[in-house]
């Protein structure tokens, strides 16, 4: 069975472009959740109170060591039993990937927070800042700047994980490719094109992140 350009260009590509917004929405939604939850987890792990820091570290470790696919299944199939709420694939997907990558981002935040020089913490104390003021105006602005490129890289990693959502029935790029395949009995063109779309988008994004890294460095000097 040879490659069919007519089929590729007239059927596969338009149908894939039709669902590309689903993939992008899932990526951005999960990333937004990961960015917020990651900071919460990072602060939780640093807490002086052991009853906060220990469980947080345990949860982070557990999530980090178990497959996102199984976590997705857990959220999609078990949450209805536990909480009586049935989640749409998109919501379950954003929750699953968002929670999984929040543990990675918490490590990134930790590195950023630890890179803030000690004098800055002391200065905040000397100025009699409240903890909230200290974090909001002194520590976090300095901690987050150097980690922006790293977060960009995790956005790309997260984007490449979104095909998992096909497993819980979300019609994103790969799900759509599979359904084209099951109707036409031609899997070659749809799945190849999905790969190419991922390659183009993730490679472009990685160039953007490199550029961003270069720009941030330049301003810092």
């Amino acid at each position, binding site marked *: 069975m040879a490659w069919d350009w007519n089929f590729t260009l007239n059927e596969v590509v338009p149908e894939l472009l039709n669902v590309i917004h689903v993939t992008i929405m899932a990526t951005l939604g999960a990333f937004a959740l990961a960015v917020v939850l990651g900071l919460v987890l990072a602060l939780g792990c640093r807490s002086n109170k052991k009853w906060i820091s220990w469980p947080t570290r345990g949860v982070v470790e557990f999530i*980090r060591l178990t*497959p996102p696919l199984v976590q997705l299944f857990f959220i999609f199939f078990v949450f209805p039993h536990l909480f009586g709420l049935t989640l749409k694939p998109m919501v379950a997907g954003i929750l699953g990937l968002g929670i999984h990558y929040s543990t990675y981002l918490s490590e990134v935040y930790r590195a950023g927070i630890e890179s803030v020089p000690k004098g800055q913490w002391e200065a905040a104390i000397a100025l009699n800042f409240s903890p909230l003021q200290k974090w909001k105006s002194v520590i976090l602005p300095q901690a987050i700047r150097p980690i922006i490129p790293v977060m960009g890289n995790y956005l790309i990693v997260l984007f490449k994980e979104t095909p998992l959502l096909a497993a819980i029935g979300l019609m994103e790029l790969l799900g759509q490719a599979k359904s084209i395949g099951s109707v036409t009995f031609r899997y*070659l063109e749809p799945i190849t094109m999905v*790969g190419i779309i991922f390659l183009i988008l*993730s490679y472009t994004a990685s160039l953007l992140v490199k550029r961003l890294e270069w720009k941030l460095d330049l301003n810092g000097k």
Partner: protein
Amino acid sequence: MIPIDVVSQVLPLLQEGFIVTIQLVIIAGILSFVMSFVGGLARLSRFAPLRWVSGFLIEFFRGTSLLVQLFWFYYALPLLGVTLPTGLVGIVALTLNYGSYGSEIVRSSILAVPKGQAEAGIALNMTRFQRMKSIILPQAFRIMLPSFGNLMIELLKGTALVSLITIQDMTFYITQARNTIGHDTLLFSMLLVAYFIIGYVITLVFRWLERKFSAGRV
């Protein structure tokens, strides 16, 4: 209450799948370790064409998602006349994907060895090969160990994806059992714990390796 009869039904299934998951981790782990060195060294080669080809392949396998690659080898490749056994598809896709990530680890670790070390080798009239073998790689290896530990955890988590192309690993058995037995909460909790245990063992092994290879050094 945990229904004991369900546990006793599920445990043998989990055990069957456990063997397959472990096999995948070990085989694909060793192969991607080897590929990491081949790829990483090729990217640092003196011969430009080798650098370009390896760079392109590594970017290619890193840039397209693992699940897309698995599906491609499983659904699309047979249409081109190449049918691989399903288990091999899993190993090939996992190896190419994680081997490519590993190549970047090897490359960056070699570059992280201070330049003075290579210069000392030159001063001692060592050949390129001798320098790499006796000076650069032993030092680079210690730098890359923690990253390889993380890569193996990623590989373990990646093996769960092979259940979607019908390889009978732990996830496959549990998703099947779900249809016949039910008890979703218990089944998926057991599955998560099983992965956590394997992942934790991998973490401990790499911690031990890191200690072993940094013994006697500051």
